[in-house]
């Protein structure tokens, strides 16, 4: 069953075209690594898929719902964890979960139970009723992750979810993602950290200048380009590896 179905998705900010006719289908129960250079259109795609941006051309269905016509139904079924998002820092994590759980129409008892389990799993500990504004960056990121998973979504969009996390937490989050896919969840994962994407993704989609330039398992894509690692593959497919950089000297003309 396809949880994401995109046909000829086009998007422009004013005169600048960001997405140039993307076609994509994603099956349930996969971890999809969505990678691309800065400004390639990754976050834009995710915002559209999450029902946050309805100003685009093309057809986009998520969990069987048209995101333009039924954004509420889409949001009910997905989890969205944006990159470096602001959260209400004057609240305690519990109060923040109460807000997010409430917005997802989740009973407080369930919100509390799930958040406690997730906090324990992600090793997030804090003083009773401690406010988020006294947290480190990694702790805030964990709160953000937990808040996106509270309603047990079937499809989870993660935009750089490991930002700010320490090594142990990264391992925990990776395990959590595997665990979620085993339970039939689909993860749509955007990141610049190629090593992690290569390791955890069942399928990799590489976006370059608003177009999909590679789509398949790492082995499938690597068979075409023979780069050895996702990092090299990325460099080959996005054209960054074509220029010679070894003899670069920024003080050369002085």
């Amino acid at each position, binding site marked *: 069953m396809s949880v994401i179905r995109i046909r000829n998705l086009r998007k422009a900010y004013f005169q600048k075209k960001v997405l140039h006719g993307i076609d994509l289908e994603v099956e349930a129960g996969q971890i999809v690594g969505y990678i691309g250079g800065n400004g390639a259109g990754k*976050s*834009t795609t995710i915002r559209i898929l*999450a029902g*946050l941006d309805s100003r685009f051309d093309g057809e986009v269905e998520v969990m069987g719902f048209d995101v333009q016509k039924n954004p*509420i*139904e*889409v*949001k*009910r*079924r997905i989890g*969205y964890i*944006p*990159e*470096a*998002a*602001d*959260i*209400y*820092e*004057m*609240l*305690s994590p519990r*109060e923040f979960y*109460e*807000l*997010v*759980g*409430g*917005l*997802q*129409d989740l009973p*407080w008892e369930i919100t509390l139970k799930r958040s406690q389990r997730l906090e324990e799993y992600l090793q997030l*500990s*804090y*003083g*009773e*009723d*401690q*406010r988020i*504004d*006294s*947290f*480190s*960056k990694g*702790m805030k990121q964990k709160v953000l992750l937990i*808040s996106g998973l509270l309603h047990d979504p079937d499809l989870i969009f993660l935009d750089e979810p490991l930002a700010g996390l320490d090594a142990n937490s990264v391992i925990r989050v990776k395990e959590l993602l595997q665990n979620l896919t085993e339970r039939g969840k689909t993860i749509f994962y955007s990141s610049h950290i190629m090593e992690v994407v290569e390791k955890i993704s069942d399928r990799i989609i590489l976006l370059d200048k608003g177009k999909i330039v590679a789509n398949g398992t790492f082995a499938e894509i690597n068979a075409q380009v023979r780069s050895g690692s996702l990092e090299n593959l990325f460099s080959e497919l996005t054209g960054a590896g074509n220029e010679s950089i070894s003899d670069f000297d920024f003080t050369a003309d002085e």
Partner: protein
Amino acid sequence: MNKLFVWLVGLANPLWSRLGADPKAISLILSAKLKMDDRGGFAMGRQQSKKSGMQAFVYLFIAMFGVFLVMIFNLVNDVPTALGFVFSFWMIYIGLMLITEMSENLFDQRDLYVLLSRPINDLTLSLSRILHIGVFASKFGLCLGVPTGIYFLGWVGVWPFFVYLLLSVFTLLITMTGTLVFYLILLRRVAPERVKKIVGYFQIVATFIFFIAYQLPSLVGDISQFKELVLVGEPLGFAFPGLWLGGLYKAMTQLGGGWMTFAQAGIAVVAAVGGLWFYVRQSRGYADRLLALREVGSVTVDDLPASGKKIKGSPIRDRLASWLTAPNLERVSFNFHWNVMLRDLTFKQRTYPAMVYMPVVLVITVFRDAFTGEEAFSVGEGTMLMLLYFVIWIIVIPLGQTKVSDQYRAAWIFEATANPYPHRIKYGQLMAVLGMFFLPTAILVYSVVLAYWGPSYWLDVVLGCGNAILFAMIYNVVDSGHPFSRAKDDSKFSNFGPLLIVSLLAPLFGFGHYYLREIPYALPVSAVIVWGMVIGWMYWMRNAKGAAAGAMEVEGAGW
């Protein structure tokens, strides 16, 4: 204009070098900060749209205030005393602007990454800050001062004009250093985790005092009594720094006036020069303190001090929530709004002074005639209605501020979640504001009305209360948008338009009530209709399904 100021600052480069600062770095920092000011002041780096149109309007308004100040010379014959008053107004006005607009600048911790990671010393950093603040103050000083300058050049004389120019600089120096030294002492003497809180509350109190000071002249009855007033050179001339400058003016233009004039002139010089010296002295170790201030925001559970940001239980909130909301999204919204209103210092800074302002205006309006001695004190039914309807402001001011936040980007959560009952958020928002602000005020006001005018006025109270809540509901619809989703310095119509509409429409409710009193049975019928509308509307808010209300006004692609 920024380039002009940077050039003027550059003229003193030998002085900066002599003091031990880096003139080139000062010039670069100043240019960058002035550029950032033009693109959005408070949450710098977040809002990049130019705000020159709004700024021009503000400066025009200040220049008009400057024209008004020239009239003081017509009211008071003694020029030094009149000038003392003018400079006193400058100090209050510019001081307030510094307190409300530039305090954040003093504690801008992005400087830690951007500036302190470069090879510049403490003095360069703190000098660039005071010069930045100086330019900010000078822009206001220029707008305020030009009309008085023209008056001096045309009607008083060339030498007094030059003295006036010099004293304008002194006024800015005294105002700036007076304000900043307070902050610097705070930064040095008070524990970092308390500094921001103290500054925040200081801003609230200072704004409140300014509002009251602004209203005081309206209590003056017969202004002709000021004609022969002389304060400079008299004991009262020591009372306010503005009058010291009047003493300095007198000493420099009339070369006489007795020892008290010279003493006041001396104090003015010492205040300006000494203030600057003290600022430079206090600014040592500034970077370390700034770093300490930043670290307050990055502690973990193990090193959180006992006095850290802990949340106390709120039995009042819980009790009111159980009375006013159902245990669903309504209560979530109620608790969320209550918590943010109670904890967000910037919300308090925006809300509290404006809320206190209304009672002050009300008291002055009611008692002005008695104060000025023009009429005997009396309160009739008109005053009662004014009391009943002024509570609308007590709801509308905080309600409007629940749409605005420095953390407006955090409102993405309302867009990203599936909320089948978006109106319950608005209901919880309204109830939280009613519970926190309206309820205590209403109990007080309605008790006063019933006690003073008599229980027979209960129908007026019922109708007034219904109207106030109905009005707040209308306002909440007009002013759409997610909770805390707009930037503070967003100069779009949405930030001030609804309040403007309220200002125009609110008196209509009061007048309507006044005329209904003349028609038999109109009051009870109106009360039933109004309360019927309120209850019906609330029922709809609590049960209607629908698309999320309002659109995000979050700019940028950071989420």
